[in-house]
C-alpha cells in the first residue's frame, strides 16, 4: 500500500511507468546457455562488493612497514606496506581472509564465465550482424578482465606475484625500440619502483573497473536495444523472441542464479585456500619460489613463454629478444583475431544478412573447426604453464615434458580442429540428433558435396511466410480493458502468449503481424483455460502439503511435551 503510493508519487513526477512497463515485459529466451554471461555479471558484482571491503584495509604503498600481528613467522618483520597490510587482512582483520579469498575466487570465476560465454557466442554465431558491435565490447571486457586480474594479483607485493610482474615487465621490455621506454613510463623508473604498487592500485580499483562498469552497461543496453537472439524452434522466427518475461519469471530465475553465484563464491572463499601470501613471503628481487605459476587466465602467456625455444632472432641486424614473440606477438594476434572474427567470417563466408536466430554449433563446420583448434591450442599452453607440477606428478624430467609439449602444441590443435570439423559436417548432413548417434555412414556421406540449394532452403526456412502451413494461427481476444494475442501451432503443440497487453485490437494485430508475418488472425471470445498441471506435479504438491502439515503437527506436539516436562523439571533450564 505504501509502496503503491510511493510508486504513484514517483511516477507523477518522473513519468516512468511506460518505460517500466516496457522494461518489465522484456522477453528473455529460456535456453540455459543464455545465462552464462549472467554468471560473469554476478561474479563482477561479487568482485565489487568484496573489493570495497578490501580497500578499507589494504595499504597500496611500497613504503617500509613493520608487521605486528597474529602470523608469528612475520611478526616484527619489515616489509612493504602493501604486503604487511595484506597479511594483516588475512590474519588480523575480522572476516578479512574470507573476503580476500572470495574476491580472488570471484576473479577466477569472472574470467572463466566470460570465456564460457564467449565460447557460446562464438559457436552459435551470435556475433553476426547486427551484433558485431556487442562482440567488440565483449572482447574488450575480456581484455580488461585479464588486465584487472593481473593487477589485482600483483598488488599484494608477495614473492609469487612479484615474479609474475617481473616476467610481464620483461615481456614489455622485449618490444623493439620502445620496450624500455614503455616500462619506464609505466613504472616510473626501473622495475621494482616505488610508483609500481600505487599505480597498480589505481588501475585496479578505479580505472579498469570504471571502464568495465561502463562497458557492462553498454553491453546490456545493446542486448536490450537489439533484443535477444534465440535458437530456432517452433514459433521462433527472425522477427520475435520467445521466452520468459523479465518480471516476474525471469527476475526470479536471475535472482536465483545471483544467489547461486554468491553461495558458490563464498563457500569457496571460506573452504578452499587461495593465494596464501603469508606463506610466499614478501617480494625481494633476489629471491624466488617454485613451482611458480600465474592465475589460470594468464597462464597461456606463461605457457607460451616456457614453450618458445631460446632463439636469438635478428631483424635488420638488431636482436629481438625471444620473449617478444610468445609474449607480445601471440597476445596481440590472439586479441586481434578475436576482434576481427565477425568481420573475417562475413568477408570469407559472404553472409551479410542480419541474423536473430542462432546457429547450432554443427551448422557451421569451419567455425567449429577453427574454434576447437584455438581452444585446444590455448589449453595446451595453459597445461604447459604447469609443466613443473606435471613433471613431478608424472615423475618425468621437466625438459622432456617440455619438448613433448612443443610438439603437442603444434599437432594437437590441428587434429582436434580437423576432428571437430568432420564431426560437425557429418552431424549437419546426417540424421543423427546428437554426437553419440553418429555412425560411420554419416561421416562417409558427409564427404560427398551436398546439393547447396537444399541447405540454403533449410537455413532460410523459418523466414518464409507461413500462410500455407496448416494449423498455424494468431488468436486475439479482449481481456477486460486490454487486448491480448497468442500464436498457436496446433500440430506442433505450441502456444505462445504475447508479452504485453495493448489497448486496441488494431495494436494487437500489428504486433502479432510484426512477430508472425503472414499468419492468419482469428478473433476468439476469451483466453483459453490454463493447461492442467502434470500428474506428477500435482501428486508432488499434494504429498508435499501433507508432509508439511504432519511435520508441523509433530513439531507442535513435541514442543508441547517438552514444555510440560520442563515445567515439572529443573528450574534453571527454564530461564
Amino acid at each position: 500500500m505504501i509502496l503503491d503510493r510511493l510508486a504513484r508519487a514517483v511516477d507523477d513526477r518522473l513519468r516512468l511507468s511506460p518505460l517500466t512497463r516496457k522494461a518489465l515485459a522484456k522477453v528473455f529466451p529460456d535456453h540455459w546457455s543464455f545465462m552464462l554471461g549472467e554468471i560473469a555479471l554476478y561474479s563482477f558484482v561479487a568482485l565489487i562488493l568484496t573489493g570495497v571491503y578490501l580497500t578499507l584495509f589494504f595499504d597500496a604503498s611500497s613504503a617500509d612497514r613493520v608487521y605486528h600481528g597474529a602470523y608469528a613467522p612475520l611478526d616484527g618483520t619489515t616489509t612493504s606496506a602493501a604486503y604487511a597490510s595484506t597479511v594483516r587482512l588475512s590474519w588480523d582483520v575480522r572476516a578479512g581472509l574470507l573476503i580476500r579469498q572470495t574476491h580472488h575466487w570471484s576473479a577466477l570465476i569472472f574470467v572463466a564465465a566470460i570465456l564460457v560465454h564467449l565460447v557460446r557466442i562464438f559457436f552459435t554465431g551470435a556475433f553476426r550482424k547486427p551484433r558485431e558491435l556487442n562482440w567488440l565490447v565483449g572482447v574488450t571486457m575480456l581484455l580488461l578482465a585479464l588486465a584487472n586480474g593481473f593487477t589485482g594479483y600483483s598488488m599484494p607485493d608477495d614473492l609469487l606475484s612479484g615474479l609474475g610482474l617481473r616476467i610481464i615487465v620483461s615481456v614489455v621490455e622485449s618490444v623493439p625500440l620502445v620496450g624500455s621506454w614503455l616500462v619506464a613510463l609505466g613504472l616510473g623508473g626501473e622495475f621494482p619502483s616505488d610508483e609500481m604498487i600505487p599505480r597498480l592500485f589505481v588501475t585496479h580499483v578505479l580505472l579498469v573497473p570504471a571502464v568495465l562498469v561502463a562497458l557492462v552497461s553498454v553491453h546490456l543496453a545493446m542486448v536490450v536495444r537489439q533484443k535477444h537472439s534465440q535458437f530456432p524452434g517452433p514459433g521462433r522466427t527472425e522477427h520475435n523472441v520467445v521466452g520468459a518475461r523479465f518480471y516476474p519469471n525471469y527476475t526470479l530465475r536471475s535472482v536465483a542464479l545471483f544467489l547461486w553465484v554468491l553461495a558458490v563464491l563464498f563457500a569457496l572463499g571460506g573452504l578452499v585456500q587461495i593465494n596464501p601470501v603469508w606463506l610466499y613471503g614478501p617480494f625481494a628481487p633476489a629471491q624466488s619460489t617454485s613451482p611458480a605459476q600465474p592465475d589460470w587466465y594468464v597462464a597461456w602467456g606463461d605457457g607460451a613463454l616456457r614453450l618458445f625455444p631460446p632463439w636469438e632472432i635478428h631483424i635488420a641486424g638488431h636482436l629481438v629478444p625471444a620473449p617478444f614473440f610468445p609474449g607480445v606477438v601471440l597476445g596481440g594476434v590472439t586479441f586481434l583475431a578475436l576482434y576481427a572474427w565477425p568481420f573475417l567470417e562475413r568477408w570469407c563466408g559472404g553472409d551479410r544478412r542480419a541474423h536473430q536466430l542462432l546457429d547450432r554449433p554443427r551448422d557451421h563446420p569451419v567455425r567449429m573447426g577453427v574454434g576447437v583448434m584455438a581452444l585446444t591450442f590455448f589449453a595446451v599452453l595453459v597445461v604447459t604453464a604447469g609443466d613443473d607440477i606435471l613433471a613431478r606428478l608424472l615423475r618425468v624430467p621437466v625438459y622432456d615434458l617440455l619438448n613433448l609439449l612443443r610438439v603437442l602444441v603444434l599437432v594437437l590443435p590441428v587434429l582436434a580442429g580437423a576432428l571437430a570439423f568432420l564431426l560437425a559436417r557429418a552431424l549437419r548432413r546426417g540424421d543423427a540428433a546428437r554426437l553419440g548417434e553418429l555412425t560411420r555412414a554419416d561421416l562417409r556421406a558427409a564427404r560427398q558435396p551436398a546439393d547447396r540449394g537444399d541447405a540454403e532452403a533449410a537455413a532460410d526456412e523459418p523466414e518464409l511466410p507461413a500462410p500455407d502451413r496448416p494449423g498455424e494461427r494468431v488468436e486475439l481476444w479482449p481481456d477486460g480493458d486490454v487486448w491480448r494475442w497468442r500464436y498457436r501451432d496446433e500440430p506442433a503443440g505450441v502456444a505462445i502468449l504475447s508479452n504485453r497487453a495493448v489497448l486496441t485490437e488494431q495494436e494487437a494485430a500489428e504486433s502479432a503481424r510484426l512477430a508472425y508475418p503472414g499468419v492468419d488472425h482469428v478473433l476468439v471470445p476469451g483466453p483459453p483455460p490454463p493447461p492442467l498441471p502434470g500428474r506428477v506435479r500435482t501428486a508432488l504438491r499434494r504429498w508435499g502439503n501433507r508432509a508439511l502439515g504432519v511435520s508441523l503437527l509433530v513439531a507442535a506436539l513435541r514442543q508441547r511435551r517438552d514444555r510440560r516436562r520442563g515445567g515439572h523439571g529443573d528450574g534453571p533450564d527454564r530461564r
Partner: protein
Amino acid sequence: MGVRTYRSTRRWWHPGRTVVLGAALALAAGPAALAAPVAPTPSGSAAPAPNGTASTGARGEELFRQNCASCHGQQGQGSQRGPSLVGVGPASADFQLSTGRMPIAGEIPQPRRGEPVFSAEEIAALVDHVASFGGGPQIPRVQPGSLTAGRALYAANCAPCHGAAGTGAPLTNGWIAPPLYDATPVQVAEAIRVGPGLMPVFPSQVLTDEQVNDLTTYVRRLRAEHLDRGGNPLGRLGPLAEGLVAWIVALGLLVAAARWLGQRAGE
C-alpha cells in the same frame, strides 16, 4: 659428496642378479623383506639378526657388511656399484638412513624418502661405523631458534628449490627437491650441512649453527596445518590448482545451476 652417491647408483644392478637375489631374499626373509626391501647381502640373509651381546662397534660393522658393503665396499672404499663412504661423515650417513633413502631399493636416479629400514639403535651403530672411516660433518645438534629469522633465511636460501610453501619442486633431469613436511629438525640440519643429491652444501661459514636452528624451526613450522588458515590448501600447489578448482568445481556448479534454472523454465 652426495651428488656422486646418487649418480653412481645408476648402473648399479645387473637385471639377472636382481631376479636371483630377489628370489633368494624372498626365500630367506619371507614377505617381511619384500615389504621393506633392503640391499642384498653377500650371505643372502637380509633380516638383521638380533645381537644383544656384541658391542655397538661390532654391531655396526656387522650391519654394514650385511647391508651396505655389497655396493660401498667392505671398508667403505666404494665399488663400481656405489661411491666411497670415506669422508662423508656421520651427518650424511644418518640423513640417508633415517630418511629411509638408504639402503636403496632399486635402480632409481634419486632415492625417495621412505620408512627407515633400521631401528634407531641400528642406525646409530651404522653411523658410528661409517664415522670410523673418518672425515665429514658431525650430526648437528638442533635447538629451537627464531621463527622470523628462519623465515627470512628460508626465503633467501631454500625457497627457490623447495618452494616458499615447502612443497618441493622439480629440478633438472628428473630430479626433484623434495617436500619438507616429513623432515625432522635434525634431518633438515643434516641436509643443510651435507647437501644430499643436487642440494648445495651450506657449511658453517655460510650458515652458522644458530641460523640452522632458525631454519629448522621455520621448516618445522611450515608443515603445521594452522598455517593453512584459508581452508583446504590444495597441496599448496598455487594458482593452477586453484584455477582447476575454479573451473571444475565452481564453474561446473554454476553452469549446472544455470542449466537447472533454464530447464525449470522450459517446463
